[in-house]
């Protein structure tokens, strides 16, 4: 049963106003295409969860889709701050933005607890810091063995998790390589999952290397085929991170007006990712391709009859 659909239909069907939405991917495989479609469909009152809100949430916040962020590191990696988010946090401009803050491992633990149906996840972090004061959902827990106390974080179960990957089959069996972040945990934790891929493959490609599968179609609601859908983030083996855009965004986002102009041109002004890529231009796209191939090599699973 094919779950292949368009980005427009996937977002319309599975992302609702007020949802907790996780578009995960630690620098790698961040699905900007889905974020832009959420902006175009003018979803509202979302709680956006991500370890590193990154440019995609700065854009979604600037577009007014979000009322709250759940996160662990708020910045433009290697460049600076996220200005649209900072305007709302520091100056309530144009409205306040609620923050719920953990550390990286705390967020990973939250997804893990959500995926595992556990009421909490324990970790050795937060000792002697101000984080538990800032967030009362970071709580001490006593070990039942000995006297030790560690900290616990509560499960995070997104209403919808959106994952970008190198490939999936029509049922949503998904494979990725390179940095895996916490997409697996975020997907298993979610009520609904949208997978966006560079390439739709036959089921036989997935079954040829079952150890490469990150999660099964069982938990997937929609498969969207959208090449270059992670730009300006990147896809290992397919295209590079567009660091130029990450640097450019710093200037774009410093003012509300330039931010809105950018959204008008690059999000509202295009119908979808295909048009975005066309607008980006063949030269820019070509410049982001890897300079060569680095094949993994093949291993043998053997036939056992």
């Amino acid at each position: 049963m094919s779950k292949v659909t368009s980005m427009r239909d996937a977002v319309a069907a599975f992302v609702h106003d007020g949802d907790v939405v996780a578009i995960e991917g630690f620098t790698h495989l961040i699905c900007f295409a889905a974020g832009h479609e959420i902006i175009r469909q003018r979803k509202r009152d979302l709680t956006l969860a991500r370890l590193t809100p990154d440019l995609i949430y700065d854009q979604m916040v600037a577009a007014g889709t979000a009322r709250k962020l759940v996160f662990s590191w708020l910045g433009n990696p290697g460049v600076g701050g996220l200005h649209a988010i900072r305007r709302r946090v520091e100056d309530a401009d144009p409205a306040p933005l609620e923050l719920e803050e953990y550390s990286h491992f705390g967020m990973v633990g939250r997804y893990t607890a959500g995926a595992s149906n556990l009421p909490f996840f324990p970790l050795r972090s937060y000792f002697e810091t101000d984080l538990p004061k800032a967030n009362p959902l970071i709580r001490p827990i006593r070990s039942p063995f000995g006297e030790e106390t560690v900290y616990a974080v509560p499960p995070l179960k997104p209403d919808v998790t959106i994952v970008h990957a190198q490939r999936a089959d029509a049922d949503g069996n998904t494979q990725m390589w390179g940095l895996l972040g916490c997409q697996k945990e975020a997907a298993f934790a979610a009520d609904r999952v949208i997978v966006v891929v560079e390439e739709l493959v036959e089921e036989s490609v997935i079954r040829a290397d079952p150890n490469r599968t990150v999660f099964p179609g069982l938990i997937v609601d929609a498969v969207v085929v959208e090449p270059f859908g992670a730009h300006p983030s990147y896809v290992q083996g397919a295209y590079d991170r567009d660091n130029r855009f990450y640097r450019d965004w710093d200037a774009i986002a410093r003012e509300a007006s330039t931010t809105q102009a950018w959204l008008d041109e690059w999000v509202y002004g295009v119908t979808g990712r295909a048009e975005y890529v066309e607008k980006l231009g063949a030269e820019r796209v070509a410049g982001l391709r890897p300079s060569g191939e680095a094949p993994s090599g093949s291993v043998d699973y053997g036939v056992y009859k």
Partner: protein
Amino acid sequence: MSEPRGTAASAAGAAPGAAGAAPGAVGSGLAQGAAAFSKSEMMIVAAARELAGQRVCFVGVGLPNIAVNLARLTVAPELELVYESGAYGAKPARLPLSIGDPTIVTGATAVVSMFELFSFYLQGGLVDVGFLGAAQIDRFGNINSTVIGEYEHPKTRLPGSGGACEIAINARQVFVIMRQSKRSFVERIDFRTSPGNLGGAEAAARIRREEGWLGRGPSVVVTDLGIYHFDDAGEMRLDSIHPGATLEQIRETIGWEPGVAEPLATTPAPTPEELRLIREQLDPEGAYTK
């Protein structure tokens, strides 16, 4: 530097220019027979040398990244680079802007989920050195990378912990790299994101032991002016001053009266080979070192 948050050269990533020298702040250091070098180059070299004998290093982006790669080429050839994004044994072919660049994956020894990286590598005690930067640090090496001002009503919202909080607790030791200024080396940090020696060495050692932390806390702070280690009371002590820097500059850019080792060493200037590696191999475009 224009924004306090820019000083957070944490493992979670930071502005490359921020933890380095401000534009135009070219170092005046000039040791015998050595070429001129910038303050950033001195910081990188000093940090790299501190990595001698270390095995596994949790790499932050920016200055830590270049320092660690310089160490691999000089004093610590066996150094294994761990990126919190999940790459272990990375051999980056270029210096990445972010810590999640594809170049740290291709050719790495292992690429693992963040659950595994944080659970087994970091919390499991396999990381010898973690690098942290910060917006604020106090004399005990406690670090703030969360907010300037009140948490609920911040004057400046900084990136937050990222992995810094768990690095400070679980890495066997912590190296800090940051430029000195009265705004960043403060008597009292606004928010404790990453614990250092808390209120002093004795209490910190007791708490770390009782709570089962694997990390011994901060062991060195490398700045644009000198190198600090921690004394028996757990306070930063200036052990080495960079060539060209003065004690007056040190005192003008620190919010308390720092202890100074006697005798105070002068940091050996970067060698021509160190400078060559930085300028020709690691950062030919000078993104981190200008």
